[in-house]
């Protein structure tokens, strides 16, 4: 069973809108990573946020981390159809994945 829980399980938005997905863990979080998985490119690393960081940006991605709440969020701004994929958080200290959020971006 997974240690991480993503919320929502599924999200459908229009191209150009922002998408926010959340991840929470029952165990403590050290560093945390986000990955994207689609049928074309498999699982790909997006961003790593360290336990002493609260927020990190990479292009259209913004990640926050709250270690006291054992949670993280991923914001994708100005979404594109190519962002359609499943998104997973990974508790880096335990190498465990959450259940994922399936994002669909409609053109």
């Amino acid at each position, binding site marked *: *069973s997974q240690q991480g829980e993503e919320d929502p399980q599924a999200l459908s938005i229009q191209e150009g809108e922002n998408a926010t997905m959340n991840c929470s863990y029952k165990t403590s979080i050290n560093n945390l*990573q986000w990955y994207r998985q689609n049928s074309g490119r*498999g*699982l790909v*690393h997006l961003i790593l946020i360290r336990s002493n960081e609260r927020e990190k940006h990479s292009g259209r991605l913004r990640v926050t981390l709250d270690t006291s709440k054992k949670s993280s969020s991923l914001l994708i701004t100005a979404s594109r159809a190519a962002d359609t994929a499943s998104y997973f958080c990974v508790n*880096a*200290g*335990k190498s465990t*994945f959450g*259940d994922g959020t399936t994002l669909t971006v409609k053109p």
Partner: protein
Amino acid sequence: GAGVSQSPRYKVAKRGQDVALRCDPISGHVSLFWYQQALGQGPEFLTYFQNEAQLDKSGLPSDRFFAERPEGSVSTLKIQRTQQEDSAVYLCASSRNRGLMNTEAFFGQGTRLTVV
């Protein structure tokens, strides 16, 4: 090679048959991970190697599952006496350093195992 390579890409096994799945990590990568992914779910951790040492095998679901990385590069995941519940995609990943604390994992395309 340029990335993590897994073979075969697809495997159909009859129930009770033994299978061996191969992973070629990125050259020089210290860490190697195996995950099992059922349809519609996130990858489930199976086992972790640091070079040739299997440091964590807590995720292996039963003693029918066995993994090795004898020379610290190529790894093989073996499943004995396959059962239908073993049907899944098996993903291999490697990372440059120890674990995932400060380094990203690079994933292969996976081996889709179907047990009939």
